[in-house]
């Protein structure tokens, strides 16, 4: 029996085989979806680029070469050079590390926080719900970017403060989703069945509600990562994010503003990097929704 047959067995013989089979089916469903493959590849390339940046980048990201200022794209400098003679391609490659760090940390901070707040508010209801959701709603009815800007202004410019500011402003959206999801699940008959068997709230939340919330959270977080990249780049563009000489993409565009009319590549190239990576997250998030949606579960 091949591994594939084992995974796709109609009548699995253990819990492990059943779960592995389900994971395999989700994976193959993603592989059948061209946008998902494209998005996944883009993110994979981003991760590999960030890890292997020192070996991939042909030049130093910060080393200046004033004799090679503002050169257009050529076989020597693939994306041209900036006003200090730095190779833009190398800077874009190194910049992937910054982008990946921001995206990763924001997701790690805000998603679990939002998930927990939302699940607790939704499950217990009553005053717990009212207080938690009151706070969440206040955050949600305020402009995210402006709040992030104000936070960074107070905390001082820099990449760490940018991450904190973005995380502070993004968890409420996740709390809302998790709560809405919890509310629909909470009164489901399979939850009542567990309660009738004597299962307490901790068991119900952790074993039954959270696993169902996570798939919609994964989808939402993936889709939101594009927004996080744009916000981070925006902070960099205004001068409040990563500080020079760090090769942050938004800050690079900001530097290129002055030259946009004659040396278009300085501002344009990092922009393409932002768009491609953001699109990668969008594609993956969009197709994850098609594949993981519980409503379409029975079909595959």
């Amino acid at each position, binding site marked *: 029996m091949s591994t594939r047959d084992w995974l796709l067995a*109609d*009548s*699995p*013989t*253990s*819990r492990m*085989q*059943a*779960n592995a089979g*389900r994971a395999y089916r989700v994976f193959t469903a993603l592989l059948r979806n061209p946008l998902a493959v494209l998005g996944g590849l883009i993110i994979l390339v981003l991760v590999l680029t960030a890890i292997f940046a020192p070996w991939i980048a042909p030049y130093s990201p910060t080393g200046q070469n004033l004799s090679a200022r503002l050169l257009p794209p050529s076989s020597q400098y693939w994306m041209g050079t900036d006003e200090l003679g730095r190779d833009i391609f190398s800077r874009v490659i190194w910049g992937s590390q910054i982008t990946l760090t921001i995206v990763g940390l924001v997701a790690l901070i805000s998603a679990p926080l939002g998930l927990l707040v939302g699940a607790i508010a939704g499950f217990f209801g009553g005053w717990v719900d009212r207080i938690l959701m009151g706070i969440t709603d206040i955050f949600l009815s305020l402009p995210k970017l402006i709040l992030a800007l104000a936070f960074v202004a107070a905390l001082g410019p820099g990449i760490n403060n940018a991450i904190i500011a973005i995380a502070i402003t993004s968890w409420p959206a996740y709390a809302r989703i998790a709560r809405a999801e919890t509310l629909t699940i909470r009164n*489901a*008959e*399979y939850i*009542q*069945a*567990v*309660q*009738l*068997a*004597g*299962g307490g709230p901790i*068991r119900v939340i952790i074993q*039954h509600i959270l*696993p*169902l919330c996570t798939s919609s959270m994964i989808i939402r977080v993936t889709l939101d990562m594009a927004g996080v990249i744009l916000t981070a780049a925006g902070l960099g563009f205004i001068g409040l994010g990563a500080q020079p000489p760090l090769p942050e993409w938004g800050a690079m565009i900001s530097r290129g503003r002055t030259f946009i009319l004659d040396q278009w590549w300085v501002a344009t190239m990092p922009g393409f990097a932002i768009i491609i990576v953001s699109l990668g997250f969008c594609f993956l998030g969009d197709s994850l929704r098609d594949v993981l949606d*519980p409503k379409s*579960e*029975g079909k595959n």
Partner: protein
Amino acid sequence: MNAIDIQNLDISYGDTKVVHGVNLAIPEGESFALVGESGSGKSTILRAIAGLAPDWTGSISVLGQARSHHIDRQVSSQVQMVFQDPYGSLHPRKTIDAALSEPLAIHGIGNRGERVEAVLRDVGLDQRFRFRFPHQLSGGQRQRVAIARALMLQPKIMLLDEPTSALDVSVQAEILNLLKRLRREQGLTYLLVTHNLPVVSFLCDRLAVMRQGRIVEIADAAQLKAGKLNEPYSQELLAATASG
């Protein structure tokens, strides 16, 4: 000792009272039906007994013990419930095995593998189904799993909330036979909620007809079979069944 004893039961959902002054006594081993149209409050009574509709006044006792307003662990090994919708009553991401072992895990009962196998045999499901997910099963098979889950803690009383109304006629017959056999073999008490009088006639000893939150009439199954229900509303229901 009665399996279920209900006195002066009023149940509310929010501001609205949906059950008014219900009295019921169901002896151990009996199969009793609550009959009525949607909104008559029949399901609500089941939910109150189970602890899922906590907003009630009056008294409910189960096997001689007064019932609290909430779900509690003692009662869960005495009373279990089977829901109407076999699609909504199983967790979509858990295998049949996980759903069936969970009550055992909650109550710290060992030997789970064997017990799961045994209960699957009891409800007439092949062992092949044990590690499947709910969406890989038909409606009738899912309802068998739901019944098996209710049996895991070996309860004395089963609350059945329209257990066959979402199923096709041919599948309904299989589930009804199963319920009848389980009751005989395990000496269970049934409290069945349904709008389907023929199902009552097949499965139950007595019935209560409900309308707008009140019990209109309590009758024997023999009366039902003979078409001799007393109240006009009961006769209306009977007529609708016969004509439909």
